[in-house]
């Protein structure tokens, strides 16, 4: 059965650290896949967040969409510069209801993402994120992409929830959220 996965953080403490990079929560998709990945109740005690993911689709391929604090209004924009193995291209969109990350492929080939969300708990500024992601298929299908993304959320609220959704993430897809102290 396809479900949605939420990694809640209620009642969890942060262990004493010896450095500034800490694991907050991890979601690994089980049998049947998942239609969305949600990190909720994200503590505001870090300076920046990073999501490191390895994922693939189940069924039909799609571009994962990222939203903050369950805001589905037209409050986002995004840009990308992309290499598809033969040419570089770029695009952008304003007044969007989400921010994209790169399209995915089917296992056993994973797409990987490194998403940085900067100053996520600062209530004096809108929020920006950047993503480095891509995949390679050894020339089959689309062949692969290497992509640099930027995204903006036009809201000064502290980010406490991150949702990544669109199609169905396949079993074994894994999303790990980390906090970086300032």
């Amino acid at each position: 059965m396809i479900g949605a996965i939420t990694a809640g953080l209620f009642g969890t403490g942060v262990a004493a650290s010896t450095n500034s990079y800490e694991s907050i929560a991890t979601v690994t998709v089980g049998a049947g896949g998942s239609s969305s990945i949600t990190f909720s109740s994200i503590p505001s005690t870090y300076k920046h967040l990073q999501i490191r993911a390895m994922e693939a689709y189940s069924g039909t391929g799609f571009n994962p969409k990222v939203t903050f604090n369950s805001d589905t209004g037209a409050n986002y924009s995004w840009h990308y510069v992309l290499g598809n193995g033969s040419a570089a291209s770029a695009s952008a969109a304003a007044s969007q209801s989400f921010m994209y990350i790169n399209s995915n492929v089917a296992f056993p080939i994973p797409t990987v993402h490194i998403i940085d969300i900067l100053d996520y708990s600062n209530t004096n500024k809108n929020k920006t994120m950047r993503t480095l992601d891509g995949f390679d298929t050894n020339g089959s299908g689309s062949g692969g992409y290497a992509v640099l993304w930027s995204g903006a959320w036009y809201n000064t609220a502290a980010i406490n929830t991150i949702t990544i959704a669109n199609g169905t993430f396949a079993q074994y897809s894994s999303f790990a959220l980390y906090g970086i102290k300032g």
Partner: protein
Amino acid sequence: MAAGSTYTPIATTTLGSAAASYTFSSIPSTYTDLVLVVAGTTSVNGEAILMQYNGDTATNYSFTYLYGTGSAAASGRQSSRAYAALNWGTAFSSTEQSNAIVSIQNYANSTTYKTCIARNNNPNGSSLAGTEAIVSLWRSTAAINSILVKSGSGNMNAGFTLTLYGIQAA
């Protein structure tokens, strides 16, 4: 759930003399991701830094890259190669410090192929100066327990640094 510090150095080296390759072996499987940071110069001006996992020298690797040279952006692909690459559209210099940071994600799982993604910066001095993002595939489901890093056709010069980190998710 929150688990405290998790970005840990596994091994590091500074080459005392020029070397064609360096191997990180017996990599523990206890982390989620690996991050390799390399920096330095190469004996060949316009060099690629390459990787092989678990001693696999067969043509089980491929990569797609996006790069900018300062005047244009471009993309390319190499399929069925005998190595993954930390750079290809741009290149390491024999005179100026270049660097690359590569993330090898979920390296220890035995279900999926392995994909790594790198960013590199190669300043003036190389015949192929610029900046690049490059994603490489290894078509094997084996857990990665060793990484050989090598210079494409020459040596990594003395002073070249290679540091391997492990990131452990909750």
